[in-house]
Each structure stands twice: as C-alpha cells, then as structure tokens.
C-alpha cells in the first residue's frame, strides 16, 4: 500500500520541492544563513527524515500524550495548538483547539503558522501527516509501542525541541520508577489478569498494546496476552475457562461501560470474583503513552501486588 501511485506522485512532488529549495538556496549563496540552512534533520518514530528549525517556537500537539510530554518539558509557552482531548495539565485546556484527535482541522493548523506539528501514532493520522508534508509544515511522529519506549520518545522530543536536558531528567526519573516496580514484583508469583475495556460486547487488550506491557511489568500475566488483535472482542467462555485471578478495568468514563454487575454475573466462578479482586485503574494514566504512564504502572502494580 505504501507504493501506491499517490506515493509516487508525492515523491515527484518532494523532488520538485527539493529542487526548488535548492535553486532558491543557490540564488542566495553568500547571503547570511537563511532559515532553510538553519534547519536540522531528525529521524522521527516512523523513520521519516524531518527537517526542523532549532528551538521551534510554534508547536502544535495532535495527541493528549504529546501535549503532556511538551508541558512536562516546560514548553507551555511555545505550544500554540492542542486537540479537544488534551485536558492535562489544566493549562492545556486554555490553548487553541485544532479539532479532536481523530479529525483535526487542517485549516486551523495552517492558520496557527506552526513550525512543528507533533503527531502520535496512537491517533492514526497518517493521511494528515501526508497533507502537512505537502504544505511543507514539519511533522514529527512519535511512535512508542511499549512502556519503556515512552521514555525514549520523550528524549527524542527533547532533542527536537531543544529541551534535551529536561527531557533526559524526566526520562531518567521515569525509568527509575519503572525499575523500582520491576524490582518489587520481580520475585512474586504472577497472577492471571483479565483486562476489561468494556462489557457488552466484552473487549479486552491483545499482545501488542500498552496495557499488556503494563500488566507484564506490573507483575501480572494477561489471559488475552497472546491475542494478535489489539482490542479483540473476546469470548466470555474462554474467560471462565482461563480463570483470571485479578480483573482490571478502567474506572468510570462517565457512563458505565464496564458494568461491575455484568462481571459478577458472568465471571462468578473465577478466582478474581470469588476473592473480590477487581482493580480499577485511572484510564488517562494507563491509556496515554506520556509522562504519567509510570503512575498508571504503579497503580496497576499496587492492585496486582498489594503491599
């Protein structure tokens, strides 16, 4: 799919653009270093080469986890746009909205004149990335696929935004806390865990999800941990047969999507319900691959292995 005709067309366009820039650059030889010359090239989370001005001053975040990272790096004053889902920290809510994570408003993004747009693969915005590339707006994509990769993605964002020192400190702290959790649960027996995203239909988390990684690090073993789909609709019969010892579910989203009564009715024979071990985790802490994911990890570890 990557080698579609539109990609070819796009490559031709890029080539033309590069040629044009080169021409403009040549025309300016001898002049004091222009903007184009100042740009540095970075490789983003998808392996794309992105050329970005050092210390970008007008940053747009297209994902809540990215917003949290940028604010944690002290970039609050340089963030000019966020999504409607960016609700942490509190100050993020006051920023200009460029639409929601699933459907950002391209015109709004352009009108904010960003010198950097940061996208997270969690929000599946590949098409938008392409459009922004065509408009010559630098797009940096972060792509953390595991808990420890979040720290790495923070370091890279630190480099891109010229806040390396702070990023190294933050990432280091996160890694220390992850290590501490691993040390604490290391020798303990790993309980079988059912993670419930919703009941009706029952949705759980598969192998390649953050939540599965979190459960592993927190010293548990997900009963749906070998599913290849990320968020499969899962058989209740299999849950009963695999007898989870702990049931983990995100706490209230406003409406009850995980109904405790459903869990108790259907899974009454499982050790988890018989010993009353339903662990409620804060969704924003376990769902967002940002600085607070370690808090989610600690919450989960506390639930799986209470002190």
């Amino acid at each position, binding site marked *: 799919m990557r080698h579609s005709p539109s990609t070819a067309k796009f490559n031709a366009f890029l080539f033309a653009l590069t040629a044009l820039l080169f021409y403009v650059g040549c025309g300016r030889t001898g002049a004091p270093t222009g903007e184009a010359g100042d740009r540095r090239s970075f490789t983003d989370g998808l392996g794309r080469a992105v050329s970005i001005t050092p210390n970008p001053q007008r940053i747009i975040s297209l994902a809540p986890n990215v917003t949290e990272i940028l604010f944690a790096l002290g970039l609050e004053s340089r963030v000019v746009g966020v999504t409607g889902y960016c609700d942490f920290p509190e100050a993020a809510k006051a920023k200009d909205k460029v639409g929601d994570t699933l459907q950002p408003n391209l015109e709004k993004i352009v009108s904010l004149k960003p010198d950097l747009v940061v996208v997270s693969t969690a929000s599946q915005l590949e098409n938008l990335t392409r459009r922004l590339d065509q408009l010559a707006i630098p797009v940096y994509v972060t792509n953390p696929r595991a808990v420890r990769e979040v720290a790495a993605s923070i370091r890279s964002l630190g480099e891109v935004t010229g806040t390396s020192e702070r990023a190294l400190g933050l990432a280091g702290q996160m890694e220390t806390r992850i290590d501490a959790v691993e040390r604490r649960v290391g020798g303990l027996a790993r309980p079988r865990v059912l993670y419930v995203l919703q009941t009706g239909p029952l949705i759980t988390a598969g192998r390649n999800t953050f939540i599965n990684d979190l459960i592993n690090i927190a010293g548990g073993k997900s009963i749906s941990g070998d599913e290849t789909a990320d968020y499969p609709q899962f058989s209740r019969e299999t849950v009963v047969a695999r007898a989870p010892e702990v049931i983990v579910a995100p706490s209230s989203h406003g409406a009850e999507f995980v109904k405790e009564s459903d869990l108790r009715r259907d899974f009454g024979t499982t050790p988890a319900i018989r010993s009353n071990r339903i662990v409620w985790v804060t*969704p924003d802490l376990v769902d967002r691959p940002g600085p607070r994911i370690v808090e989610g990890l600690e919450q989960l570890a506390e639930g799986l292995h209470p002190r």
Partner: protein
Amino acid sequence: MKVETLIEQDPNQSPGGPSKSYLTRRRALIVISALLLALLGFAVAALNLGSERVASGSLFPALISKLTGTVSPLSREQDVIIFSLRLPRIALAIGVGAALAIAGAAFQALLRNPLADPYVLGVSGGAALGSITAIIFASELSYSVSYIRPLFGFAGAAIVTLVVYRLGRREDDPAHLILAGVVMSTFLSSVIVLMTAMADNVKLRNITLWLLGDLSSGAVEGLFFVIGAAAVGATVLVTQSRALNLMMIGERDAFAMGVETARVRWAVHLTASLLTGAAVSAGGAIGYVGLVTPHLVRLAAGSDNRLVIPASAIGGALMVLIADTIARTALAPRELPTGAITALIGAPVFVYLLLKSRK
C-alpha cells in the same frame, strides 16, 4: 415492484408444483415441524460448539441433573459456560431472529413490497437511535441501561413507524410508504453518525460495535423482553394473517370483502415495530434477517401469510442462530459481530433470489 412474487396466484408459475398456492393443514404442519426440527438440531449443535470444549456426552446428563437437582457431571466452570453463557446466548439469537423475521414478513405483506423490511422502513434505525440515546445518556438516568435500552428502542421504533406512516400514507399505494421509509432511515443513520462523532472515544467504540449486532451480553432482562415480544407479535400477526392475505390483493378489494383495513394496518404496524424495537435493543442492529427469511419461506412454501409468518419466525431464528454460532466459533476466542455474518449469508441469498425471480 414485484408484487407477483408475493402473490403467486397462478399455480403454473410456481416451480414447486400447484399445491404450493393452496395451503392445507397437512402441508403447514409438515413445513412447521420440519423447521422446528431443524431449529432444535442446530440449537443442540450450537450448545456443543464454543471457544471452550465441553464433552458433548456430558451435556444431556448435566441437563437432567440440572432439572432434578442431582450432582452435575460438569465442573463449576463448565456449568457456567454451558448454562449461564452459551444457553442464554442461543436463546437470545433465536428470539432476535424470530422477531426480526416476523417483522419483515409482516411489513412485506402489508406493504405488498418485496423490499419492505424493518431496515428499509427506518424502523430499525429508530430502534437503534432510541437504544443509542439510552447508552449515551444512561449515566444521567438513575436506572440501569439494560432496562432502559429496550424501552427506548421500542419508543424509537414506534415513533418512526408513526412518522413514516403519516408521511407515506396513500390509499392503495405502498410505494409512498417505502419512499418515506427510505428517507427516514437515511436521515436517522446521519443522526446516529452525528451522535457517535460527538460522543467521546470509548462511547464511540461501544456504539459502533453494538451497531453491528452483539448477542454476547446475555442479560436476562433483554432475553425475556425479546422472546416475549416475539411470542406476542407472532400470535397477533397470525390472527391477522387471513386479513393480510386479502389485503395483498389490494386494500380496496379487501375492504369490499369486509376486512377492516385501517384496523389491520395499525395492528400490524405497531406489532412489527414492537418486534423490531425489542430485537434491536436486545441484540443490536442485525440486518438481512427480516428481508431474506420471508422470501426463502415463500419460495419454499408459497405465500399464504398463515404459514409465512410462523415459518419466517422459525426460519429467522435459525438464520441468526447459525450466524451467531459462526461469529463466536470461527476465530475463537475472538468473537465477530453477528450482524456482519448475517449480511455475509443474507446478501448472496438475496442476490440469488433476485436472479432467480427474473427468469
């Protein structure tokens, strides 16, 4: 419109022989008991199939022990799997399938239109919209969703039926009604899309999955509601089936022959929307059952509504049961949306019927 496929007055036209057009008690009995037998067979098979294997030899003894209160040969987990998860789900599939197929048969007969079904008329859309409203605003209501959902579903179906009926009512011209229904269902699906676009992420996922049909949450309330609705609906419609037969020739003629056409129309409309509301709120929007099943029944057993309505009930139950068994076993322990499977089965069957009726 292919009214003639519904009426089939000329015995020579039906390939199954001339007897098909004249319903005898014996033939009705044969058709119904054959379908019931098939349903029973598939239900037993479905009870044996699932993501977890339970030795099929122990199922019958387990059932006996359940009834007599003796020690079950099943472990506690197996007992839960068979009697608390699999059996209610099979019952729900049967109830939802029966309700949808009866509603489809009733709408097709009443409107003398082979394309009429709860979906085309927008009744399913109304039920879905009602149920989605219940899902989204459930937290603000003090009752549990499982009770609210069927009520909202029925209310949505009934309101849409009334609106479509008012908009499209023309003496002896079913086309207007279908047109009103099509407009209504397009409008409703836009409203649903708009509502899902405005709901937050998690709610969105819930609604989209539920819209594709979900029989897995064997909430007992929904189960009783839909089975009760199917039983009441089938009874009401069977009592109206003689009148429906006459009205299929034309409402004026039926009126001249002493049928209270207005009363029959209302009774059939309301019953069919109750059935749709119950089915959609209990099992999500499962498509093609209401459209395809009555056609298959007519093809096999003629178009006398006294037989078409009960036979469609059993046929629809069979179709949803088979689809749901595939949905929960094909990729086990992953499950598929049941509505996707009914469409996968139903669409080719429908195309086959269309091609066949052209010859």
